[in-house]
């Protein structure tokens, strides 16, 4: 992914901030609206807040496009959960068919982090190799579906399908290991 550092080095400049919003804003809004049960105002606030946090921590952007989006979506959820806890009088109506938002895992110490990482790697190892490979290529390496299809010699539709079913399977594998909720 391209450098998005401002001249100061530590913070994104305005143009980079606009590029970040242009790249992820619409998707974040779609997800946030869903998480708030249709409250567009709160969704928009959460998206802006997440973009500002990214602006304050540009190191999270020094990763693949996929994991940058992952960080932003996770942050939007975190912000909505915190807002919900802060004012329990008006609870967020989480869309009916979803149990609850999962918080990002706590990072209390390096040891905890490594333990969590071990569980996540174990869950990834339990996936079928094609599922795992699609996730690794698109999320960690940061390839688009088209790039990954080219790289793996597969039709794009197959890559999409493997990402979808791979993430479903990962969710189940994590649940089995007691991660989430």
């Amino acid at each position, binding site marked *: 992914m391209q450098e998005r550092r401002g001249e100061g080095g530590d913070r994104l400049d305005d143009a980079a901030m606009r590029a970040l919003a242009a790249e992820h804003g619409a*998707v974040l809004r*779609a997800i946030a609206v869903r998480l708030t049960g249709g409250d567009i105002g709160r969704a928009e606030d959460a998206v802006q807040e997440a973009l500002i946090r990214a602006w304050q921590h540009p190191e999270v952007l020094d990763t693949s496009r996929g994991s940058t989006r*992952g960080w932003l979506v*996770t942050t939007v959820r975190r912000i909505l959960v915190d807002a919900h806890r802060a004012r329990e009088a008006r609870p967020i109506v989480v869309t009916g*068919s979803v149990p609850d938002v999962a918080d990002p895992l706590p990072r209390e110490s390096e040891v905890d982090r490594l333990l969590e990482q071990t569980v996540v790697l174990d869950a990834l190892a339990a996936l079928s190799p094609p599922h795992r490979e699609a996730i690794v290529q698109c999320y960690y390496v940061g390839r688009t579906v088209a790039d990954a299809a080219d790289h793996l010699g597969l039709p794009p539709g197959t890559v*999409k399908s493997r*990402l979808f079913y791979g993430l479903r399977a990962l969710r189940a594998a*994590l649940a*089995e290991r*007691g991660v989430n909720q």
Partner: protein
Amino acid sequence: MTHPTQDLGAYLIAALSRDEEQAVTEHLAECELCGALLLELAETLPALAQVDAAAQSDLARRAAGSGSDEVAARRPAAGRNRGSRWHRRQTTRLLGVLAAAAVVLAATVFGARALEAGGHGGSEARGVTPTSAAQAGNGSGLPSALTRTFAYTGDDEVSVTVTAASYGSEVNVHCSNHRVSPPPGSPANTAVFALWIVRTDGAVVQVSSWPTVYGDKLIPGAVNFSPQEMAKLELRDGNGALLSSEPA
């Protein structure tokens, strides 16, 4: 409406083209089903973010280096999991007391109906009974394509379709409920159901879980073993209690 279901994973991790992404965003504005599926996929993101740079490049190298050999060699250990850890059914993460209360409520409400309907015997039935047996297995495992229906004697019907795939099996759960909203006085969406598979080697794997459905919902899932390696499908509640199984 055509659902871009299989685009949702790529959408979430920014792997679609601009145009595809925009089409999915527009669809999400009006589709509850895809919105809910997307949020479920998003639950994996905090975990994926736990993997540090060193482990990421290790994963990438392993995937790239030996597309089949090394990864395939790992598979038995990872996928065939016969360890006792897998037999421990980790259900504590499920919604605990609230879910338990809701399941009791559901069993009470629907149990009465089961008796009315002259269903199948008594309170032990817990409101669920398998109704349609599909093709019999050929001694080991399930056929490579089958649909089994667990008829919930209340309002819900759960059917499971297992299809062999190159990576193992697709396991799709279709839930339908003639109600589109909770019955008056009952809490919405608090009962939790889960599909488990008992493998022919004795290991037990949870494939998916979902809250009470109103209307229709498809809950897609996948596992990395074939239908022939499945001995039994089990429908369980949020606390892991067996509601019904196929074959019984």
